[in-house]
C-alpha cells in the first residue's frame, strides 16, 4: 500500500508531502506518524507542505490532528512551506489551524523545533 515516507533527522521526524493525497492516504499518514513518534521517541515533527497546491478541510483537520496527537506524545509539530494561495483559501474556509506552529521553510522549521527543545 502506498504510504508517505517519514524520515528521521536526529530527534525529529520529517514528512514531505508531495502528492495529492486521497483521504485514506492522509489517515494512514496520521497513524504512521503517531507510531513513529513513539517508536523513535521523537521530540518533534516537521511537515513540509510546500508542494501542496490544495489543502482542503480534510487535510487541514489531518494537520490539526497530527499536531494535537504529537503534543500528547510530548512532541512539537511545525508545518512549513504553505503556499500563499493555499493560506488565503484556508483562511476563507475558516480553518485557522490553531495550535499548529508554522514556518516559512524546512530550515526555519528545524530552527524552531531546536529552539523549543533547548
Amino acid at each position: 500500500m502506498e504510504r508517505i515516507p517519514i524520515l528521521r533527522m536526529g530527534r525529529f521526524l520529517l514528512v514531505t508531502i508531495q502528492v495529492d493525497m486521497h483521504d485514506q492516504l492522509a489517515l494512514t499518514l496520521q497513524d504512521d506518524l503517531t507510531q513513529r513518534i513513539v517508536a523513535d521517541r521523537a521530540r518533534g515533527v516537521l511537515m513540509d507542505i510546500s508542494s501542496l497546491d490544495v489543502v482542503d478541510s480534510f487535510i487541514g483537520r489531518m494537520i490539526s490532528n497530527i499536531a494535537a496527537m504529537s503534543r500528547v506524545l510530548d512532541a512539537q509539530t511545525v508545518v512549513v512551506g504553505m503556499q500563499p494561495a493555499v493560506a488565503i483559501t484556508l483562511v476563507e474556509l475558516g480553518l485557522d489551524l490553531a495550535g499548529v506552529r508554522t514556518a516559512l521553510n524546512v530550515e526555519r522549521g528545524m530552527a524552531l523545533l531546536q529552539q523549543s527543545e533547548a
Partner: protein
Amino acid sequence: MATDAQRVERSDELALRSGEDVVRLRQAVRERAVAVGLSLVDQTKIVTAASEIGRNTVQYGGGGIARIAIVANGTRRGLRLEFSDHGPGIADIAQALQDGFTTGGGLGLGLSGAKRLCDEFHIESEVGKGTRVSLVRWKPY
C-alpha cells in the same frame, strides 16, 4: 437550477465513487480553471470547493457524478461545477449551511466553506432522493 444565462463551452463528466476519484476531480478542476484563465488564488479556491463537495458526494451521498463546464455569460468566462447524487439527501439545508466547522466533521464543514469560496452556489436536496450542488467561479475580467 436557474442561474444567469450561461453558454456552455465545454463540459466533462466524472464519476465520484472513491477517494481516488476526488483526487482526479481536483486535478481536472485545476486544469479547467487554468484553461479559463482564473488567477492562482481563484483556481485554488474552486479546486478546494470541489474537493469539499466531491468528498460529501462520496461520503454522504453514496457516490455520484461531477460535471465540470467552462461557461460564458456575455463577455465573462467562468467555471461551473455540478455535483449530483442519489443519496439520503439533506433534511435541513439551512442548518447544514450554517454549521461552521465542528471538530467532529459533518456536512456543515464542506458546504458553508465551499459556499464562501465561490461566486455562485446553489444547492437542492430532497430526503430520500438525493442532492445537487452547483458552484460557479467567474473570471473577473
